[in-house]
């Protein structure tokens, strides 16, 4: 009985960041001494425990005192250090760094065949087309190793990457044709979702694994941006130093640091996310908190202007692309917000804001759809227009369902899980669509 209570008390105290495990040990020893003294004085076990806990003092004040003493503990340790699992961490680090180096080497391989990325346009196009193929297999490899992916899935993934490589390079695209551009834009998305299968350890049907992958993707992106910024500084300083020394830094920077660093960072960022999940947990909710109101305001302002001026969306192509981009960002933000939200919390102000965001996006999507249909009836089908049509329809379905489910959630009729489920069910839809654009579009539109 006493042991249970002491264990509960330990758990409660341990949650305080400023109080580490060793301190809790010390306090527990104190508690036990106090309890036994009180029992010796005649109190029973329960009374003794209650009084002893009370004497230790109010936990808030206590952790404040500890925090003042150990202020560095309030910063969650961002540094990846070999903690208790020293050997395991070392192995993981070796694998991650090894794969990053391999990626860096691989991206230089085409140079042996005369394809340089500061070369002619066709060479640059080769690199752009295959960029995700140079990078994502290594990330997938790291995740597959970490999750001990079963052989069947490993073979399947390798097959998928090979197939993608063949499709991208063997299909007779017309140079600078639209289908090629569309394929280039959609390939990374398809491959990223394939990496998700590796992340989920093959359990791609599990909605929790899918949601975890969404979280992983968001955090990976943050880490990658941070590393890229640091890399940018590195390149700038390298360029300065070398030109000051009279040597030409351009080759070193553009042919070595940029490509190798850029691809290596993909794997490293993935490793860091896996290693330090609990740190970024704090960033995601803050970021969504900042951006959701901003984007809601943007959409509301836009819709207001449209209603006021009575302008239909001008049917120019660039405008439609901008809208699609906006909608993709909003859906992404919505998805990220859902992944960052505590599923057990009651609907609150932030949820109402999300609902407004979704409804506004739905209206914008409907307008964009109208404009695209107008363009199609006027100019006929083309790869770009069909792609835009398809994407808008998918987003319309997503936003429509999300709006309905959110309304029910806000009224308390449905749980939050239905929203999560809705979003994670769409992930395979995105994958299927991306595959269609990459593989089928060129065939149907005769590679133009």
């Amino acid at each position, binding site marked *: 009985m006493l042991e249970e209570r002491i264990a509960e008390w330990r758990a409660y105290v341990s949650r305080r960041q400023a109080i580490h495990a*060793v*301190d809790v*040990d*010390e*306090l527990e*020893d*104190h508690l*036990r*001494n*106090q309890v036994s003294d009180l029992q010796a004085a005649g109190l029973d076990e329960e009374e003794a425990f209650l009084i002893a806990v009370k*004497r*230790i*003092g*109010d936990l808030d*004040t*206590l952790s404040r*005192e*500890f925090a*003042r*003493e*150990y202020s560095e503990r309030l910063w969650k340790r961002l540094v990846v250090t070999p903690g208790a699992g020293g050997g395991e961490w070392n192995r993981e680090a070796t694998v991650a760094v090894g794969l990053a180096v391999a990626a860096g080497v691989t991206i230089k391989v085409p140079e042996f065949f005369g394809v340089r990325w500061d070369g002619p346009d066709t060479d640059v196009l080769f690199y752009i087309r295959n960029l995700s193929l140079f990078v994502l297999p290594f990330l997938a490899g790291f995740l597959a190793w970490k999750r001990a992916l079963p052989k069947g899935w490993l073979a399947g993934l390798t097959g998928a990457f090979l197939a993608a490589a063949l499709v991208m390079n063997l299909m007779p695209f017309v140079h600078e044709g639209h289908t090629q551009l569309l394929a280039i834009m959609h390939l990374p998305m398809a491959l990223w979702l394939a990496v998700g299968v590796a992340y989920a350890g093959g359990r791609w049907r599990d909605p929790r694994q899918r949601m975890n992958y969404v979280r992983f993707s968001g955090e990976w992106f943050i880490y990658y941006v941070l590393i890229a910024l640091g890399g940018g500084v590195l390149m700038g300083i390298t360029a300065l130093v070398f030109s000051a020394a009279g040597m030409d830094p351009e080759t070193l920077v553009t042919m070595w640091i940029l490509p190798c660093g850029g691809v290596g960072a993909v794997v490293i960022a993935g490793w860091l996310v896996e290693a330090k999940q609990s740190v970024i947990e704090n960033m995601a909710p803050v970021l969504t908190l900042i951006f959701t109101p901003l984007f809601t305001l943007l959409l509301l302002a836009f819709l207001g202007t449209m209603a006021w001026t009575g302008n239909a969306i001008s049917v120019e192509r660039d405008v439609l692309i901008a809208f699609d981009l906006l909608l993709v960002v909003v859906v992404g933000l919505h998805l990220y917000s859902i992944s960052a939200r505590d599923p057990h919390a009651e609907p609150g102000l932030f949820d109402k804001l999300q609902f407004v965001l979704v409804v506004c996006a739905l209206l914008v999507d409907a307008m964009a759809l109208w404009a695209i249909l107008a363009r199609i009836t006027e100019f006929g089908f083309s790869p770009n227009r069909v792609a835009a049509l398809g994407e808008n329809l998918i987003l319309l379905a997503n936003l429509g369902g999300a709006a309905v489910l959110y309304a029910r959630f806000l009224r308390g009729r449905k749980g939050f899980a239905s929203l999560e489920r809705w979003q994670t069910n769409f992930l395979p839809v995105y994958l299927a669509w991306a595959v269609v654009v990459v593989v089928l579009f060129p065939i149907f539109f005769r590679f133009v």
Partner: protein
Amino acid sequence: MSIGKDLVAASATPLVLAILSDGESYGYAIIKRVDELSEGELQWTDGMLYPVLHRLERAGYVEATWGKSESGRRRKYYRLTNRGTSELADQRRQWQVVTATLRGTPFHQFQAIPQGI
């Protein structure tokens, strides 16, 4: 009698150092000794002692080792270091200055405090 927060805080360091100068001890025993010495007047919140001890450890005045209690459980023992001893002497001088000054004023009850601080 309730002692002001600041006074309790200020007296914590010299008290702990002085008690440890008597020999190695651990948190709970230190608190019991303070309670004894003050005849119940100084009631420290038990938990507050530990940040003080850690602060002293960080400053190098005491040094801590993990040992075993009577029941075989882990217990942290504290011991005064050389720096701690000189810090204790320094604290004693400071308190003597303060008490001597107060004695010079019409602060009559002050003459009744126990010597040896």
